[in-house]
């Protein structure tokens, strides 16, 4: 780190990678100093002693007075071993620390088949001046990208990795708040995503023996906050309610820093796709393009399920768009036994002989948790057997909850887990019902229901409908689409048709903010109940 600092204070840092010396100026928290110096520690709360993750081990810790938040978060054993919270320390002299779990560099892995949805219709390829193109889906939790041979219209590689900005907060608002504290932090946050993408591209280029200078086009989709945090433009405006339905300009003013960081030539075109409005970004727009939503008959609905679920309803003339925050029940981290849809995840639960049930586990090995589709199956089964009432209460005394598995890890569906599930489902149900009300369309008569996002293709539609997670339409009208954001981004990368489609969608869409809508609130409460959506 080449930072000229006018001070004689130094932090000596011991990490698993070795020992480093970081000069610093007193006046900031240890967490901020470490972040600015290139050693970000993990954090999920924004640095207010709320999560206990920014642990550092300090030599001679007993010489430094404890802050109240530390006593609250750390046990006596931890404190006497020298563990402290980096967000609570304000060093004024030299310090000797070790970081056991630094925020990790993103580990890029190949895109799995279940994460990828190839473009559907034959694409009219845009004439390409340079050989390669990259499509990037900039998610809050994951970043996914694909590399294309543009003239051939062929996908060469796909990569997925965790968004390293997570060390500044697991959720969008916390990250925005952090970025708002200073330009230095905003730049640091932007740099994390920029570097991670650069690493992925370098890795792919080296593996395929191609020259990144031949990449001519890059298209980025994502929610507005993520795009703004990467481009460094206008993300902060999202903290103000006045902007929650407005289309923000998040296009970087100068793309040369990105070109340089990604090893691309000065002739390459990097474009961030226009968001729909407020937090609802171009990831939903891309999904609308990929599913051809506005080319369908009236009553076509797209739901993109995640921590924030977004939905778009086409009524033949107008596209009503909204997002609802339900919580991370389906993302693998919201419930006590939750995990993403990877090896070890219970993804299926079906009735067995008599009163028993059978589990399906991804990878067919040991089960370590439940993913979204498994949760839906489990709750539907419990409702069907009368063991759970529509209010979400276990009928008999269940103790800590319903035991799904005890063979490997003990996996229990607690009452709190059911509550978390209900809130997420109520958000989606409430949003769908409200949009349908506004459009004058009955939920049971929707012509198409496209589902993308967290469930991939694993969701059992019948179970989802029984619980009111999806509208009560004939199941052949429900289409499980996987990741439509990346698919739509690729269309925008490859063909001019994609661009025309985007313009057409932007022209007819209107963003609604459910937070201001009292009718939504009543529908939210109504949809808390574990029963089919009211027709």
């Amino acid at each position, binding site marked *: 780190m080449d930072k000229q600092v006018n001070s004689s204070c130094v932090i000596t840092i011991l990490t698993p990678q070795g020992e480093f010396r970081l000069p610093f100026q007193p006046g900031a928290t240890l967490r901020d100093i470490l972040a600015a110096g290139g050693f970000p520690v993990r954090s999920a709360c924004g640095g207010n002693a709320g999560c206990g993750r920014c642990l550092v081990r300090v030599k001679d810790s007993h010489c430094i007075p404890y802050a109240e938040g530390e006593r*609250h978060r750390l046990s006596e054993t931890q404190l006497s071993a020298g563990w402290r919270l980096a967000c609570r320390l304000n060093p004024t002299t030299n310090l000797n620390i070790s970081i056991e779990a630094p925020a990790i560099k993103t580990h890029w892995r190949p895109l799995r088949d279940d994460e990828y949805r190839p473009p559907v219709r034959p694409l009219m390829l845009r004439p390409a001046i340079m050989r390669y193109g990259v499509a990037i889906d900039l998610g809050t939790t994951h970043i996914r990208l694909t590399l294309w041979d543009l003239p051939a219209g062929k996908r060469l590689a796909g990569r997925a990795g965790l968004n390293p900005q997570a060390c500044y907060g697991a959720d969008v608002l916390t990250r925005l*708040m952090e970025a708002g504290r200073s330009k230095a932090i905003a730049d640091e946050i932007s740099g994390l995503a920029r570097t991670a993408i650069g690493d992925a591209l370098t890795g792919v280029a080296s593996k395929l023996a191609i020259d990144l200078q031949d990449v001519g086009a890059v298209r980025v989709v994502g929610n507005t906050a993520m795009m703004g945090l990467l481009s460094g433009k206008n993300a902060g405006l999202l903290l103000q*309610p006045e902007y929650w339905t407005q289309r923000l300009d998040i296009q970087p003013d100068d793309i040369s820093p990105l070109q340089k960081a990604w090893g691309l030539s000065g002739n390459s075109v990097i474009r961030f796709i226009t968001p729909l409005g407020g937090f609802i970004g171009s990831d939903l727009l891309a999904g609308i393009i990929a599913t051809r939503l506005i080319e369908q008959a009236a009553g076509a609905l797209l739901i993109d399920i995640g921590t924030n679920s977004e939905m778009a309803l086409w009524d033949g003339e107008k596209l009503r768009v909204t997002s609802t925050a339900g919580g991370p029940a389906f993302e693998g981290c919201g419930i006590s036994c939750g995990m993403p849809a990877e090896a070890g995840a219970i993804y299926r639960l079906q009735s067995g002989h008599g009163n028993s049930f059978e589990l399906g586990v991804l990878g067919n090995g040991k089960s370590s948790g439940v993913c979204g589709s498994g949760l839906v199956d489990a709750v539907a089964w419990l409702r069907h057997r009368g063991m759970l009432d529509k*209010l979400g209460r276990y009928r008999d005394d269940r103790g800590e909850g319903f035991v799904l598995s005890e063979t490997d890890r003990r996996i229990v569906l607690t009452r709190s887990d*059911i509550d978390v599930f*209900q809130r997420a489902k109520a958000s989606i149900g409430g949003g769908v019902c409200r949009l349908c009300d506004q459009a004058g369309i009955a939920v049971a008569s929707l012509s198409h229901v496209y589902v993308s996002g967290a469930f991939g293709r694993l969701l059992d539609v019948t179970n989802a409908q029984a619980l009111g997670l999806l509208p009560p339409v004939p199941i052949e009208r429900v289409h499980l689409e996987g990741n439509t954001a990346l698919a739509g981004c690729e269309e925008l990368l490859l063909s001019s048709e994609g661009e025309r489609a985007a313009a057409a969608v932007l022209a007819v869409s209107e963003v609604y903010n459910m937070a201001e809508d*009292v009718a939504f609130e009543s529908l939210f409460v109504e949809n*808390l109940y574990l029963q089919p959506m009211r027709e």
Partner: protein
Amino acid sequence: MLDDVISAYNEAVLDTDRVHALQIVSDAVAQGISPEEIVFKVVIPGLDLMVNAISEGFDINLAQHFMTSQIAADVTEKMLVLFKAPPEIYGRVIIGTAAGDLHTLGKRIVIGCLKAQMIDVTDLGVNVAAEKFVDEAVARNAQVIGVSAMMVHTARGENGAIKVRKLLRDQGLEHKIKLVVGGAPFRYDPGLYRIVQADAWAENGVSALKVIMDCIQEVKSYDHKHG
């Protein structure tokens, strides 16, 4: 007979069966139980029961919270018009959603419970400036300002509860008006209410009732002692 009404009403409320709860009440009134008894012996004790149960770890979910408060407020409102004499107002509360925030569900639950307790509550709406909280509290002689925030940056932000505290201090009102906060950020970080210098916080809509009543009591005893 009153005991039967009490248990039937509580069961209907826990089942979130509003229609049934209202039926039980109108049947009871038809059989001679006074509107005053309905409010003071059925509705309010029912709320107390729930507040105590929650504090002892009994799990009630969001739908139950919401319906409890709505049913209680509904019943009390219907009974109040039948009272022989207008009831004594327990206290006055100003409530609103913090500056920059638009969420209202939690706030509505609190309002329902306050109304059932015959506390005079004024809802200032959403995205309420700190100055407005204080000005309205002064204008209406309120003992408590309730600030609801659902997002981290509105709970902690400089225009939120912390600014209300500054204004109360600057205007010498700290003994006359108490500041109570609530919302998801306060639940995730139990120390947060102190960081924003609130007098108290409530974990959920129904528990807020007791917290607010205690604050009203505190202001009244101070007034009583110091004239």
